[in-house]
Structure formats: C-alpha cells, structure tokens
C-alpha cells in the first residue's frame, strides 16, 4: 500500500480473509500512532494485520489464524529483497510500472500461505520482464527450484574464475553519560562475490584464533564467536560436527555467514563531549575525539554527530581538523574528518545561541553517534586462511580477500 494506505497491489492466498478488511488498517494504524503505542501487529475483530514499512510503502499481511508471526515478517522482508533485486527501487512507481511481473512473483513466492521459492536469482531464470515466449520443450522449470541446491543454477560459465571475499566487522557500542561502556559487541559478516563456473565445492578456512562458541577452549588470545549464522548453502550439520564451513556458493553476491563476538572491545573512536546549556542564552559544545587503534591504520570518512536543542540558532564552529556543519532538520552538528590516523586526538568546539523564549516541548536526550570505517583491519583478529575451490572440470580459481571494520550502532549518551 502507499503511504496513505491506498492498495497498490494485493493477493489473496487463502480466501479466508475478506479483502475489504484492509480498509480497517489505516484507522487502526492512526489510532495506535496517536496513543503512542505503535505495534507491528494490529488486530480488528478476528483479523490480524502484520505489517512492515519500506521507504514510503506499507507491506501488510492479513490472517485470521494463529499464524507463524516470525515467518510472516521474514517473508515480508524477503519480498522487499526480491522486488528490490528486480526493480532496483521498491516504491509506488516501480510496482505500477511492473504490475504484471509483480503478480507473477507473488504467485511464485507463496502458495496458499506457504512461502515457496524466494531466491531472486533463481526466480530471474524463469520469471522475466519480457514474458517468455513458449516454445514447447524449451522453457523448463529450472532444476534449482526443487533441487537440494536451490540457490545455484547449473551451467554457469566464467572466462576467469574468481571469488571475492569481504570480511566486514561492525562495532556496536553503548557508552553511558559518565563514560562507562555499557555494552559493546562486534557483528561480523563474510560476504562473497562468486564468479565461478560450474558447480564448485568450496571450503573456507579461518585462522586459529577464531574458535566458534561452545568449544570450551576459549583461553588466551582467542576470539570466541558467540553465535554464527550461515547462508542456506552452508552444510549446517557438517559445521556442527567438525566446524568445517563447506558449501556450494550462490552465484554473484551473497552473505556467506555472520557472527557475533561479545568480547569487550575498546571503542575505536573515543568521544568525550561537554555540552553546556545556558537557558535563554546559549549552548556550548566541546567534543574531543581520539583514535584508539593502531597507528598504522587510518579511519576514513569519520562523522561525529552531536545533538543540539531544536531551537538553537547562529552556529559557530572551531575544529582542529575536518569540518563541522549544522544540520538543523536533524538537530545536530556533524563533524566530518576524512582521514583519522590511529592514536591521534582532535577537538571541535561549537557555539549556538538560544532564544529568550524557550521551547516548551520536552526534548529527548539523543546520544552522540559516530560513523567511520577502517580498511585492512578486523578488530576481532579474524582472518581468512584459505579458500579451497574444487570443481570437477579442475579449473584454477583465485580467491581475493579484503577486510574492513566499521561503526555499527555506535552511541555515546550525553548528560544534557
């Protein structure tokens, strides 16, 4: 549905909920929004609405059964993923522009309320925009649709066989106003860009420092992965028995695995902020940023976002490096440092005026947030030791790997 809850396209899979019920959705949504009790599940009578919002669209599912809610939300997000793969942007226009394909996809994605094939790469093999002309015997169900290997087609060919591995680690940090780290963790992800012919068997080897959770040998300088999640293609039972990551990769881009590491990490960029508010006159902000990582490394595109009151005006800045900018629509100062070497310390001062008649509205206490990326480096120390590629045709293939550490949910609470 559009942002104003006009139905763009719908599909009734089971026929047990009247399609007119959707008219109840908008009033329900508004009512909950007004009461400040917005909830992903709304219900009216015996009909339950489970919904998500994507850009300006609502994706709503209705049911009158005790449905599997987590399946429904997973599926809704999967739809977003598939449509985005197909139309680049999922928005009102792309739905209207492609409604025939959308109908076809909806028919293929789910049957009688049961999700079916949701892998967009596979779908693209037999649901195409052009509308396949049927020539008897030629158009076939891709075997992938029902194969045990449901994520990779046969007969893929590349002139040069390569696989690119990205190891990306995001740091989540929550720091209290008094400077103590409340929680921190690392969410890592290994992404592949596979350009390999045929049906290759891959085996990924990580360095010894990485132990997967529950091996019980978490002593010394090891990294214990708290929880590992794998792509459908990884043989989970094999991993469970001997910790081998073996798989037939999907073609093109995919996320092979993600992991979470709970070890206490020093926040890579440490922020000390003093925000002094002098009612009716001014706000003074002092922010000190310190790079707490190796001197050889450099953090790129660092952004320190400092909240300011919504009624602040006439900003003045002073920075030891980088640029500070006032973003009034977000009520914050964004201090950008293109290149931030490890071990260095920088300073930013800001001064704002406050109106003599004060804003009566209560304002929250937004935290300072930080964005950055540090290439060639993982905080956890995880490294790819090898990637074995075996294909029956026996070709030589090259794996490439790169590492990057970036900010995830990186928040430092303030005392104002």
């Amino acid at each position, binding site marked *: 549905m559009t942002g104003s809850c006009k139905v763009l*396209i719908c599909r009734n899979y089971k*026929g*047990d909920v009247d399609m007119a019920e959707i008219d109840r959705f908008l009033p329900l949504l508004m009512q909950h929004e007004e009461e*400040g*009790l*917005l*909830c*992903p*599940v709304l*219900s009216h009578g015996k009909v339950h609405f489970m919904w998500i919002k994507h850009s300006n669209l609502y994706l709503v599912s209705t*049911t*009158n*059964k*005790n449905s*599997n*809610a*987590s399946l429904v939300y997973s599926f809704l*997000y999967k739809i977003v993923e598939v449509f985005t793969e197909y139309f*680049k942007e999922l928005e009102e226009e792309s739905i209207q*522009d492609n*409604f025939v*394909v959308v*109908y076809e996809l909806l028919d293929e994605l789910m*049957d*009688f309320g*049961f999700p079916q094939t*949701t892998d967009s790469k596979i779908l693209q093999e037999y649901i*195409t*925009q052009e509308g396949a002309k*049927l*020539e*008897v015997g030629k*158009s076939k*169900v891709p075997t992938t*649709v*029902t194969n045990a290997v*449901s994520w990779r087609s046969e007969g893929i060919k590349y002139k040069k066989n390569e696989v690119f591995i990205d190891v990306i680690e995001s740091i989540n940090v*929550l720091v*209290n*106003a008094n400077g103590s780290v*409340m929680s921190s963790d690392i*969410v890592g992800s290994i992404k592949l*860009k596979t350009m390999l012919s045929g049906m290759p068997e891959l085996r990924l080897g990580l360095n010894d420092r990485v132990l997967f959770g529950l091996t019980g040998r978490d002593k010394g300088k090891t990294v214990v992965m*708290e929880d*590992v999640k794998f792509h*459908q293609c990884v*043989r*989970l*039972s094999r991993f*469970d028995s001997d910790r081998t990551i073996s798989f037939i990769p999907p073609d*093109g881009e995919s996320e092979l695995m993600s992991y*979470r590491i709970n070890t206490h990490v020093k926040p890579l960029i440490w922020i000390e902020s003093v925000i002094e508010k002098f009612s009716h006159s001014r706000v003074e902000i002092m922010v000190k940023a310190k790079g707490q990582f190796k001197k050889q490394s450099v953090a790129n595109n660092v952004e320190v976002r400092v909240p300011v009151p919504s009624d602040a005006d006439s900003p003045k800045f002073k920075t030891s490096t980088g640029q500070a900018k006032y973003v009034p629509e977000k009520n914050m100062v964004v201090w950008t440092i293109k290149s931030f070497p490890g071990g260095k310390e920088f300073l930013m001062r800001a001064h704002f005026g406050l109106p003599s008649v004060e804003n009566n509205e209560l*304002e929250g*206490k937004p935290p300072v947030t930080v964005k950055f990326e540090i290439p060639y480096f993982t905080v956890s120390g995880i490294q790819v*030791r090898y990637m*074995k*590629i075996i294909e029956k045709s026996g070709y030589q293939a090259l794996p*490439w*790997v*790169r590492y990057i550490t970036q900010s995830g949910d990186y928040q430092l609470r303030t005392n104002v």
Partner: protein
Amino acid sequence: DTWISTQKKIHSQLSLPVYPLQENRQFGSKMTDSKYFTTTKKGEIFELKAELNSDKKEKKKEAVKKVIASMTVGKDVSALFPDVVNCMQTDNLELKKLVYLYLMNYAKSQPDMAIMAVNTFVKDCEDPNPLIRALAVRTMGCIRVDKITEYLCEPLRKCLKDEDPYVRKTAAVCVAKLHDINAQLVEDQGFLDTLKDLISDSNPMVVANAVAALSEIAESHPNSNLLDLNPQTINKLLTALNECTEWGQIFILDCLANYTPRDDRESQSICERVTPRLSHANSAVVLSAVKVLMKFMEMLPKDLDYYGTLLKKLAPPLVTLLSAEPELQYVALRNINLIVQRRPEILKHEMKVFFVKYNDPIYVKLEKLDIMIRLASQANIAQVLAELKEYATEVDVDFVRKAVRAIGRCAIKVEQSAERCVSTLLDLIQTKVNYVVQEAIVVIKDIFRKYPNKYESVIATLCENLDSLDEPEARAAMIWIVGEYAERIDNADELLESFLEGFHDESTQVQLQLLTAIVKLFLKKPTETQELVQQVLSLATQDSDNPDLRDRGYIYWRLLSTDPVAAKEVVLAEKPLISEETDLIEPTLLEELICHIGTLASVYHKPPSAFVEGSRGVQHKRLPGSAGSGESVESPDPGAAATETPPAVIPSQGDLLGDLLNLDLTPTTTTGPPPPTTSGMQMGAMDLLSGGLDSLMGDESEPLGGDIGGNPAMGAAFGAAPATMPASFNAPGSGGLDDLFDLGGGVGMPMGALNPPKAVWLPAMKAKGLEISGVFVRRAGVIQMEMTLTNKAMSVMTDFAIQFNRNSFGLAPAGPLQILTPLSPNQSIEPLNNLQVAVKNNIDVFYFSCQYPISMLFVEDGKMERQVFLATWKDIPNDNESQFQIKDCHLNSDAASNKLQSSNIFTIAKRTVEGQDMLYQSMKLTNGIWVLAELRVQAGNPNYTVSSISLKCRAPEVSQCVFQNYEAVLKN
C-alpha cells in the same frame, strides 16, 4: 587447491570497482506497465471487449493487461469474463498467467462461466511443460467454486504423481486448498493418503510442502490423527530438514513441535539434529527450532550433561535475534519473555543486551524493559537501576512511566536493592515531572506493602507532592499511605480532610480508599477524628449511589457501632505481603504458549482459542513430561461415564479445561415450557436464574432487599433447588446509573447466621465486566454455593447460565449429589477441592475455578457405629494412614469434639492414655467416602499447643484436605 594471495596483491586488484551492475535490473524505464492505468474514458469496457477478441496476438495481450490493470485499481471488469477466458488458450506464458489471475479473482462471482475454463485447465495439467502443469494445478485450487472442484480431482491425482518435483510440490499444496473447499471430497478421493506418501518423497521441497499441507489440514481436524508421527516419519522429516529451503525448514520444525517423543533418548536425538538450525540466517527458522528444543527439553533429565549443553546453546541465537529487523525483534522479545519465565537460567547472564537504545522503536523499548525486570537479580541490580534511572528521564511518557514502575518492581523483587530503589524514586520525585511523581508514588505504596515499617521516613517527601497528584491511581495510593501510617503523620487528619471536599468528584477507587483511610485514622486516633469519620460515612452511605461504596460504608458503620474492638481487628489487621514477581503468566497458559513459540499466540501472550475463530474445540497444547498429570485426567473415568450423570455436565473426554470450553451453555430460557423446578433436573437452578432475571432486571429499579448491612451475603434461594445461588446484580442502564438490585430476601436462609466472607473468584477485568465472588456453605444438609454476580460493564447482561466442570466430588448445580465418582489418581496438581465453573451470559462464556472447603462435603449421618469403626480402621491398610500435627491449638478434647461436631465430624469414642486424650472420630463425604480419625489432645493442659492426628481413608488423597479442615475448625 588455491591459496589466498597476499594482502598487497589484493588491494591493488580491488582499487577498481569490480562489481558490475546487472543488466536485467534496468526494467522498463521506457516501456512501463503504468500506461495501462491511464485509460479511463467512457466505453472502456466495450473497447476492451473488441480488443480481447482481436486476431492479433499482441493486441490481445495488451487488452488483457489493461483488464488486469483495471482489476488492480479496483474497477469491476467481471463483465469481460467470457472474452478473457477465450484468451486462455495461448502459448504465451505471460498471457496465460494473466488470464489465470483474472479467473482467480472473478470465478467466484461467475461460477457458471468458470466451468468454461475447466477444459483448458485439464488440458494444461497435461502440458509437456512442467511450468504450465504446475501453474494449472496451482490456479485451479485457488478457484473456490464448488462445481469446478470435481473436475479438479483427476488432474490433481496425476500431478501428485508427476515426474517433475516442481509439479508434485505444487500439487501437494493443492490438496490443502481443495480440502478447504470440500473436505469430504478430499477424503473420499484418497488424496490424504497420497499426501502422506509424499512425506517419503525423494525431493525435500515436496516433503516440506506435503508436511505444510498436512499440518494445515490437521489443524482444522484436530481429531483426524492425520499427522500420524512415528519415529520413522520423524526420521524422514529430519533428513529433509537438512536439504530443503528455509521456509520448508520452518514447516518441518513446526510439524516436529507437535510430536511427543517416546522417551528422553529419542527426545535428545531429535534435539541434537535440530540444534544446527539455530545457526540459520533466517530468524523464523531459529525461532521454530527454539520451539522444538524448548518443548523436547522438558523430557530430558535435568542432571543430564546434554541438558546443560542445550541450555547454553539456546542463549546466543536468542540474543542474535535482537539484531534482526525491528518487527522480528519484537516477535523475538515477546517470545524471550515467555522463555525467561519458563527457563530463567538460559538468559540470566545476558542482561545488557536488553538495554534500550535511543533509536529502538517504542514497542521494542517497552518489551526490553519488561525482560530487564524479569532478569533482574542481586548480581546485576546496580547496572539495571542505573539504566532504569536513565530511562526515567526520557521524553516518551509511556516508556518513562514503565521505567519508574520497573524501579518499584526491582525493589520488591531484589530485597537488597530496595533501599537504593527507594532513594532513586525519591530523586525522581524531586524532578517534579508530574507523571513521574505520580508513578513513583504508586510504586512506593507497593514497596511499603512489601517492606512494612522500613521506609516510612520518605512519607514527608511524598506528602509535599500531594497537590500535584491528579491521577486516581496516584491519589488512591497516597491516601492509602496516609491512612496506613496515620499515627506517624501529625496532620493526617488535615491531609485526608482536604480530599474530602471534592469527595463526589473523585473516582470510585479514590473514594473507597479515602473511606478506608479515614476509618483507619479514626481507629488510631479516635479522639480527634470523630467528626471526620462521621462525615465520610455519611458521604459514602447517604450521598452516594455507588453500591460498592455504600456497602463498604455500611459495613464500617455497623462494625464501628457494634464493636469497636472487633472493628480495629478487622480494619487494622495485618496484611499479607505482596508477592515478588508480578505479571507472571499463569503456568498452564505459559506451557501452552511455549508450544506456540513464534506464532501470533506467543506475541499476544494469549492462547489461540482466545483470538482464532472456530478453535474452541481444538485441544490446548501441552508440554510433554510435565503434562503427565494432564494425561491421567484425560483418561475417561469409568465411574463417571457409567453413572446417571448427563454427559453435558461431565464430559468423559478431553482435559479439564477443554471440557469447560466445549460445554454448551445455552440456557433453556424462553423457548419451550418452563422446566419443573423440583424434579431434580440438573439445570433447574440455572433455568430459574436466567429466566427469572430477565424479568427482574427489566422493570425494577429500587433495591428489593432493603436490609442493607444485615447480611453481607444477601442471598436468595431459588425454589427447592438444593444449590442456591444468591445473587445481587448491578445493572447500569436501567433506571439510575448505578442502581443496585438486591435479589430476594433470603428465602429459607437463616439471616444473620455466620457467613464466611466471599472471595472474588472471577475479577471483572477477566470477564468483560462480570465479577463473580462467592463462598461455599453447608446449611441444613445442603451444600450451597453463594455467589454475587456484579455487572461492572456498561450494558445489561442477560441469559445467565452456569455449569461445573467434572470435579472430584461430583458437585453439580442443583443436581443429585450421590454421584459416585471414584477419585482418579494423580490429580495432585489441582487441589481436590478445586471446582472449575463456567458462567455464561449474553456476552460470552467465562471460566474460573474456586476452592470449596472440604467440610462442606461432610454429611450429617457421618457417625459410624463403634464396631464398624474398629473393623474399618483395621481393614484400611496402614499405607493409607496419614499423620499430621496441629500447632497452636488451645482447646481441650471436649471443646474440640463439640466444635468438630458442628461441621459434621463425629466423635465415636474417647479414651485417655498417659495424660493424652484420644478421640476417635468419623466423617462421611457426599460421595460415600468415609474418613476415620484419631485425634490426640494433651489432656488437662490447655496451654499445651500441639495436638496430632491420624487419618485413615480408603481414598487417601482427601486426607490433606481433611487435615486442613481440622486445623481451620480447631483454630477458629
């Protein structure tokens, strides 16, 4: 084997952007479908008709697209049905799909014409292209027209055996569709068996869809034993689990969750094969796996190493769910809330992951807060409090309120932290933020209840904020505090008097609290406050039309005027401490919800029967192992089934709750001749109740009873029915807003007799406004269940009816009581004297349970002959003897004997041995069970405080209840 190249090489390689854009992403910037939405001129339908019948294929296709576009925007294009169906015969797959789509939408409104499409469907089901075969069988199932279904059978049968798995998996789902339209047909055609065979299919996707279809069908036919799960099928499912898509894995896991392993070894081996799923990237797969594990874990012995391993394995995936999309986080959090109640040990070290982030959506924040309190313990309380204090200064009002409340809950839960919590609350009161102050006062009241006489020093601070309280709950809390600690607050009388001025503008909650507080004050400082108490009593009784307030006012008035000392004992009695954990989900519901992890039920924290239509009869899910008692209850009771008991009252199958839910509570009211009230008919009393009330409520608006304060029970006995149901109804809407109907004048009831107080059995908030309180008494050989039904809703309630669930002593409303129901063993979970009751009115059926004192069941002819007693005592095996101690009993043997006799416990003989009186006693229960007792009392020493008792009975289960009754009678 290829090895990783060095990093340097990689970066020289990667400096160029290496990921090209896919070409097929650039759809239709020039030629888009949106043009089909633009034509809205007159005569459109006519034009489309012509185009649809065009000879040119391209034009036809364009026309069908326009039709579908019109359909999409909600225009009615059903008039084009025959023309569109004509386009069905095509070799263009896209066009075919569009026509099928059209058919799905309009076939129902044009059933006769839909037949036209049948031929094509049948033909398409035999197309050499499997895509077409599957498309045809998929679409046919979606055309919910009865006439078509019979034509569907043959094609479906073929497709279920198709060589292509894509067709088979589609056909499997089609069986479920067909079953939904015509269940009988599916059964007659043997499709269910074919579907079961597909569980052994070589293709995992086919297996998954077959499982999904079977589960769906089984859900609507709970007794069909469709999913006949046995170790062989389970093994097949577990094998398919490793190979099918993420969705197929969910179907299989959800199906596995319905299985009950035979023993702990099977349970463990399934768990071992399910745990790898916890590493799946799809949150729904993870939650379904958690459901299976949480259920099967019940069967594992706690001392098993594997049990501990499993517990450890569950925590990380649950924590990771919190990094999913917010809606999935919400589902996860609601489920974690259940999991921490069932198995707190799993997440006890994970407190910090539930800390609230600034940008979390409000629904995530509130759920995290709830879980934080559940996990709060002495070990982490400092951290939790610091966080809660932080949250309490946020801006979102609901969140802040909940945070303040959470601080109070921490104080009550973790005793060591109470002091810190109180001082945190005081800090928050200093902020003077109105709703924070009020919320803090409400929780401080609870803290006083939990730790009396400990934190009264803060009262002064609280009193300073008296004026800013505008919410009833906060005002009531403050008034309670002033009343409770009146002796320590110098100006308590002034404070309370200040509330009195606007007495009638206050909410009931505040009025009641004020009344009680002033009475307390009077009892503590009688000299200065006589005027005040008289003022409030007259406000409550004479100037108020609220029945609760008036009743309470009169009770206090009587109490104070008859016996001030007794009044003091009653009003200033010590209060029971409040429990540590609040908001806990009731254990049987929790068990059921654990079986529904991941589903809407787990999100709502309600059983599916509460929100899914037609699921009343569906059996409630239970966890294995712990459900042992439930199973024994389920086994039909031969005695009950064979007796004269009508099946409507005591069903012989299903678990106890299930029985209640299935009861047909339609009262025989207006239709048919009125039933004879004295014929011993089972429902006599009820009929009178429901029939009589309608007329009473309609035309009376003055209290009938009149005798307020005389008899708190205000009972009315109906005719000669043995079980009387005195009732007072408060029916707003007829006459004055709060008119009280006091029914009956207590026909055949000794007025003013000692009546135990009534307890609330069914709070109004659980029964859509109907509150039921009651008490059991035995009068003149008849068990009476006295109930007060109060209508606290806004509309009139009618059509009342009542039924009891099958119970140990065969109690039934107004029925013959000599039903001989043997006690079934293993009913230890529920007390024997538990009675599950269903009351119905025009709004709904409500269920509650209450306990009756066992003494009610002691009949008057319970005195045994001496010889019989001796013989019986010897005859009952010693295993059936139970020994109990009664402490603090100050009665001598004669007094005890007299007291006991009044509750039909008869002394048969007495002898004295070594200064100890031995009383031999007997009693008989309504169902013919005899209980024999030997009571030993220290003679001549009334201060000696311990007596002991031996009970012998052929049904030893009752001994505990009987002993409790002894204790109650002797200490009273």
